[in-house]
């Protein structure tokens, strides 16, 4: 669009036509105050805080609704303007309870800040304030009407942003009140976005209310550990007798991949970390019972059992199962440990997507995967399978926002009417299980349509859809675990032909990381086959066993047959997730690293209590391949992280840890704190400084950054900017496979987690919040939107 030149406070600005005055000012560093305005939500013009003077206009104008015009002359801080703002504040405060000392938002309140600036603290009024009692709308949402300034942000973020529409406004005039959809309570997705967006303390979090004051917490921006989308969540932590307790999760820091967004899990489901059943010390089985032991004894025992098995039955008698929740460094270390220390390729994890097929189909092509950010601006999106609203809430948000703000086209192909069909330009409801055939049809096999069509979907509609897709440039294709093996290849070939980018959806926070880091019996990191000579072979002096190992199910069979002497389970629960008969493991020595006595841990011989992702540093790769840094926030006394456990076991077994973790260098041996304490943030900051000066901070074998070095050096696609990572940004990794590989991995081993918005595997089981929200048991249905909702009309766009 053409550019427009205007003058604000004497400064000449040039901005694109169609820019809102308030944004033009912001861009030039001129802050115009606001309450009701919110970028990317519909315009309100209700709070009148943004009034400015515009030459030739007799009245003050709202900067939030005025579009810039050529030659406009604006004054944003004249006496007239200041008085207007001051009086708005006086009016708001007149009926405000002024209970700031006990208000959750105290110190983080836009009304406080504004009053501080415009000085409306003197009270002109002496009459009684209108009072209403506080209401609890759900286990996590409380509403305090007297504090509400009616900026309507909550209503808009819930409706326009989340497409949930569970907040409204009732009554009129001074008795107007924000109201939940079920008269006295809420039924919704419980995302808590309304709380985050509330500029005052009217909406507060049930999880956090009255627990502490904002300035008593340390705020750590890290990565959510629940689903595969990788939202940044800011954790507020505070000292407690068990270490550092996480008291709040929110999204004050909107710099993450998720922008405004957080779902219920990212916001509230950190509470598993302080669940009373959390294990505080190692356990060892004595006379059939798990009893407490010391770390030293536990490590000695494990090392001895591994040595025994190696001596008696050789490396193939040991199996290793990795995790979808541990960091990339831990996953990489674990497979290296299995292959070099134990000498076995018997390593696997709970697979939830066919990443190997995906990597192989892309076959080393650059720039063919889409990042989570790309989805927000894609001109068109094709979604096959999955239900992102339930399983990938951020992805759903990105898609919705893209449609709403950029009028992107969305094609949904699914066997059920998933919620995103409401945003779809075109929705094809295919027969359940026919996703693969649909893809084959796309690829040109007309006969494949036979099993796809249904009374809901004609052959003509399918053909129209295919034609439309072929004409989309800039398409992002997203698919769920319904597509595997050859179907993935067919889809990728179809899309590549027209320059599409792809996202393959896996469940859990780091399942992509687990796959990329080579938790496979037949693949090394970067999906390199164990059989061909790779750079790992060079680097690791050919210590990689030359034959593929057993996959998870084969290991279980071997255990049943008494052939698996030892099983090392790191952050995984195969008994529950893969439906393994617990009895199958009775003949093996089972070592489990976990936070809780899971189904698998409870039958183990040794259980090592470990830290979760909120309690350590490292990196995660989300389902679309965006790598982000974990920052240590919480701490739970007595536990250690998986990384340290693996290194210590290797050391006990007499393995040279320098070969395992390339730490140190010029003989430095100090732990700078990366592995401990709430001050780990300090060392992260220090790390930024070091990295920016090309210095290496890794000084102990427990420093995951040392492992990250090797990952970045060896794993294709991970040679990304370390500086950006350290600065807390998401960095997209390219999924480029080592050339020469063919599709591998057995599609039959893929088992989707089937988590909903309100469940999260074991973590969810121990989250009181997730367990107390009503919607977990009775999913919300009545989430209709206004039939003719179009903010452009009401707001005159």
């Amino acid at each position, binding site marked *: 669009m053409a550019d427009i030149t205007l003058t604000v406070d004497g400064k000449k600005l040039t901005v694109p036509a169609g820019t809102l005055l308030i944004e033009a000012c912001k861009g030039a560093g001129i802050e115009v105050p606001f309450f009701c305005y919110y970028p990317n939500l519909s315009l309100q013009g209700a709070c009148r805080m943004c009034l400015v003077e515009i030459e030739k206009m007799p009245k003050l104008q709202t900067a939030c609704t005025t579009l810039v015009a050529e030659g406009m002359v604006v004054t944003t801080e004249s006496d007239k303007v200041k008085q207007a703002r001051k009086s708005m504040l006086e009016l708001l405060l007149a009926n405000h309870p002024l209970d700031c000392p006990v208000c959750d938002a105290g110190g983080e309140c836009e009304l406080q800040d504004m009053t501080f600036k415009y000085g409306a603290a003197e009270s002109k009024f002496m009459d009684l304030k209108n009072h209403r009692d506080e209401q609890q709308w759900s286990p996590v949402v409380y509403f305090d009407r007297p504090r509400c300034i009616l900026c309507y942000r909550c209503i808009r973020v819930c409706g326009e942003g989340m497409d949930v529409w569970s907040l409204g406004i009732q*009554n*009129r005039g001074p008795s107007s009140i924000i109201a939940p959809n*079920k*008269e006295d309570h809420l039924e919704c997705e419980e995302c808590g976005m309304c709380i985050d967006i509330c500029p005052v303390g009217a909406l507060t979090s049930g999880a956090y209310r009255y627990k502490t004051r904002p300035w008593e917490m340390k705020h750590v921006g890290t990565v959510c550990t629940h689903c595969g989308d990788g939202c940044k969540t800011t954790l507020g932590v505070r000292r407690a007798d068990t270490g550092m307790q996480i008291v709040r999760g929110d999204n004050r820091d909107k710099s993450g991949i998720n922008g405004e967004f957080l779902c219920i899990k990212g916001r509230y489901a950190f509470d598993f970390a302080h669940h009373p059943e959390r294990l505080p010390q190692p356990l060892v089985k004595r006379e059939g019972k798990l009893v407490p032991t010391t770390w030293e004894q536990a490590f000695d025992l494990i090392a001895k059992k591994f040595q025994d098995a190696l001596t008696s039955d050789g490396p193939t008698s040991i199996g290793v199962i990795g995790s979808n929740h541990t960091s990339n460094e831990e996953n990489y270390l674990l497979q290296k440990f299995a292959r070099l220390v134990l000498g076995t390729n018997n390593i696997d994890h709970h697979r939830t997507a066919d990443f190997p097929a995906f990597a192989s189909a892309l076959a080393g092509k650059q720039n063919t995967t889409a990042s989570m950010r790309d989805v927000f601006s894609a001109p068109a999106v094709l979604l096959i399978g999955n239900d992102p609203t339930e399983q990938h809430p951020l992805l759903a948000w990105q898609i919705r926002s893209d449609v709403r703000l950029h009028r992107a086209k969305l094609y949904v192909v699914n066997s059920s009417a998933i919620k995103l069909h409401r945003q779809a330009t075109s929705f094809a409801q295919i027969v359940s299980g026919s996703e693969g055939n649909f893809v084959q049809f796309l690829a040109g096999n007309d006969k494949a349509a036979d099993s796809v069509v249904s009374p809901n979907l004609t052959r003509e509609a399918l053909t129209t859809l295919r034609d439309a897709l072929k004409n989309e440039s800039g398409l992002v294709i997203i698919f769920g675990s319904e597509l595997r093996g050859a179907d993935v290849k067919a889809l990728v070939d179809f899309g590549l032909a027209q320059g599409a980018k792809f996202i393959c959806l896996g469940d859990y926070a780091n399942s992509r990381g687990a796959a990329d880091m080579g938790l496979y019996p037949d693949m090394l990191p970067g999906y390199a086959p164990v059989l061909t000579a790779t750079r790992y072979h060079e680097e690791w002096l050919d210590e990689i066993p030359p034959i593929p190992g057993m996959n998870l199910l084969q290991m279980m069979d071997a255990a049943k047959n008494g052939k698996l002497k030892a099983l090392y389970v790191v952050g995984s629960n195969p008994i529950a997730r893969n439906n393994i008969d617990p009895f199958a493991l009775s003949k093996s020595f089972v070592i489990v690293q976990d936070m809780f006595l899971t189904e698998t841990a409870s039958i183990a011989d040794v259980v090592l209590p470990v830290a979760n992702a909120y309690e350590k540093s490292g990196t995660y790769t989300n389902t679309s391949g965006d790598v982000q840094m974990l920052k240590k926030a919480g701490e739970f006394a007595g536990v250690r992280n998986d990384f340290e456990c693996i290194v210590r076991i290797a050391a006990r077994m007499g393995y040279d840890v320098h070969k395992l973790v390339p730490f140190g260098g010029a003989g430095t041996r100090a732990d700078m704190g990366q592995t401990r304490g709430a001050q780990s943030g300090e060392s992260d900051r220090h790390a930024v400084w070091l990295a920016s000066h090309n210095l290496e901070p890794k000084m102990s074998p427990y420093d995951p950054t040392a492992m990250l070095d090797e990952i970045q050096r060896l794993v294709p696609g991970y040679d990304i900017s370390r500086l950006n990572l350290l600065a807390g940004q998401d960095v997209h990794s390219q999924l480029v496979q080592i050339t020469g590989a063919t599709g591998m991995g057995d599609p039959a081993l893929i088992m989707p987690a089937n988590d909903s918005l309100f469940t999260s595997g074991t973590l969810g089981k121990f989250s009181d919040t997730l367990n107390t929200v009503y919607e977990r048991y009775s999913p919300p249905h*009545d989430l*209709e939107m206004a*039939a003719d909702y179009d903010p452009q009309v009401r707001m005159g766009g």
Partner: protein
Amino acid sequence: MKFSDQLEQRFATMVTHYPTKRSVLVPMLLYIQDELGSLTEEAIHEIAQRVELSDLEVRNVISYYSMLRTRAVGKYNFQICTNVSCLLRGAEDIFEQCKKKLGVGNKQTTSDGLFYLEEVECIGACSWAPAMMMNYEFVENLTAAKIDELIEGLKKKEQQ
């Protein structure tokens, strides 16, 4: 839920008058209230379904309009205007008289369920003040005697 044939008929024609379904909402709510006495939960849900809105959205609308209500009131709805034109001509006395005579306060229904009394804003009878509405009927140029007569007349009618 079904409404009377007449109302169903009205709804069926009205939806054809507008490009969006929800446009019938405000008048329909009033007509439903006329039929049912108030907007019950069931009625709210029904109309919400019909115009493809959430119950919440319908409630948001209802609570905006002062004539719409979710609780039933007396059979004879006395709405006394006390706005300025009526005020100038003694509306407050009229209102006080009604209170006394009916034995109820503002926005209350008599114990026999017959009369509901409400002070209202200008009803558009300023040149014939003071004025009131009895259900949808205007009663204008009110005097103390006229009020007495009206109430007595209605009471008598009900006794028969």
